[in-house]
């Protein structure tokens, strides 16, 4: 019994790599996309909007299959791990940049104007005035998104990455008792999402305390 549990739980490794790898890439790459989202030119905003809508409108499974089977057919063979990390990262980037855009809307225009009145340059405005407030505004949504990514990472088992679900499936084929096997996998997902929720709450309260609402 313990061996089975250990076998399934070892799949948490890939689940964690997929979740946090794509989350980290999404959190970083989402920021430069803000430049496109907030561009002065309607054309650039239109391009950004259509890309984000297409990425978010197609189910993750379809993107995974396109990048694994479809791109493979075009002669670029990606390993399951590369294909899934790539796909999840692109999807995470689209979601994160939408979250950032929502956060920017929450910052009053007076903050930009005040920074301008204090003769702060663009970099200082972003770094000391807008950045902390943006961070405060988006941190709960980012945490929710990371938990969403954790659950989306279950899909990588369909293209053969040995994560929790994949291993639970193998154990079901060996020993039957699917309820136990997938129950273990589900429990590990719940356990993994707990620390993310707790960590995000502590971070959020700390930021709120440090940068009190003006």
């Amino acid at each position, binding site marked *: 019994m313990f061996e089975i549990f250990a076998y399934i739980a070892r799949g948490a490794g890939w689940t964690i790599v997929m979740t946090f790898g794509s989350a980290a890439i999404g959190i970083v790459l989402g920021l430069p996309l803000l430049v496109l989202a907030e561009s002065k030119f309607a054309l650039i905003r239109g391009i950004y909007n259509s890309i984000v809508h297409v990425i978010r*409108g197609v189910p993750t499974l379809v993107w995974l299959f396109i990048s694994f089977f479809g791109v493979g*057919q075009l002669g670029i063979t990606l390993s399951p791990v590369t294909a899934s990390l790539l796909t999840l990262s692109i999807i995470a980037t689209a979601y994160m940049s939408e979250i950032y855009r929502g956060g920017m809307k929450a910052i009053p225009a007076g903050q930009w104007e005040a920074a301008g009145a204090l003769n702060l340059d663009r970099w200082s405005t972003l770094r000391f005035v807008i950045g902390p407030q943006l961070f405060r505004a988006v941190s709960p949504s980012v945490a929710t998104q990371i938990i969403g990514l954790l659950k989306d990472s279950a*899909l990588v088992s369909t293209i053969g990455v040995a994560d*929790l*679900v994949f291993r639970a499936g193998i154990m079901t084929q060996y020993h039957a008792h699917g309820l136990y096997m*997938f129950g273990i*996998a589900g429990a590990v997902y719940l356990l993994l999402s707990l620390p993310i929720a707790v960590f995000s709450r502590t971070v959020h309260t700390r930021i709120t305390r440090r940068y009190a609402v003006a």
Partner: protein
Amino acid sequence: MNDFAWLYDWPQYIPDLLPGLWVAIAMTCVSCLFGYVLGFFLALLVEAPSKLVSYSALVVVELGRGIPILVLLFLFYQGLPQLGVLLAPYPAAVAALTFSAAGYSSEMIRAGLGAVPKGQSEAANSLSMSVVDTYRFIVIPQAARISIPPLVNLTIIIFQATSLATVITVPEIMQQAGIIGSATFEYMSVYTAAAVLYLCITIPGAALSGYLEERMGTPKQRSKKQAIKALLPAAGKLRTAEERQLTN
């Protein structure tokens, strides 16, 4: 082989995938219908005065929200036989999606119910309305304003999640695409066609939810001037009369 053929030959696969689209839409409708009704009752149970009832409802909600839908699908399809319950792929997929939809929707419905001021139901109570009437005529209409936009969003998410049902062999879009793909090896074209089919539903859906959010979401703060204008319908006319006098 022409590497770029998929850019123009994907539309030929759309007719073969259409039966899958109907299956996906049917699954979405059934599981959202059951899921939202279940979610509503779960929301009421979570708010119940009894600690035992409220905590057990909360556990059900958190299981629905916290476990990936893929795991739920396997639990219902490959797990329940352990208890002697053999479900066909289609009911198993609907059950898993319903469970997930119930968990997510109950939080959204709870947020809507919580946003209705307590005085509303107290006032209904003092008019000696029954509990059912209070909910039917006072609380739900006000809560719906807040809950409906996220629920429309959730419906789109559930529609996208029907793609996962392919792993338990439900003949929806991805299953059809997989069958065609393995027969023709034109994976890129077939999956592009599948992606386009999903977009045909999700993009109008996203537009609808954006519209509803603007229309029904929390009412925007009006300026004092607008509020006064709305209160005194004659105010506009009076002022124009005054102005006319002044200009005369």
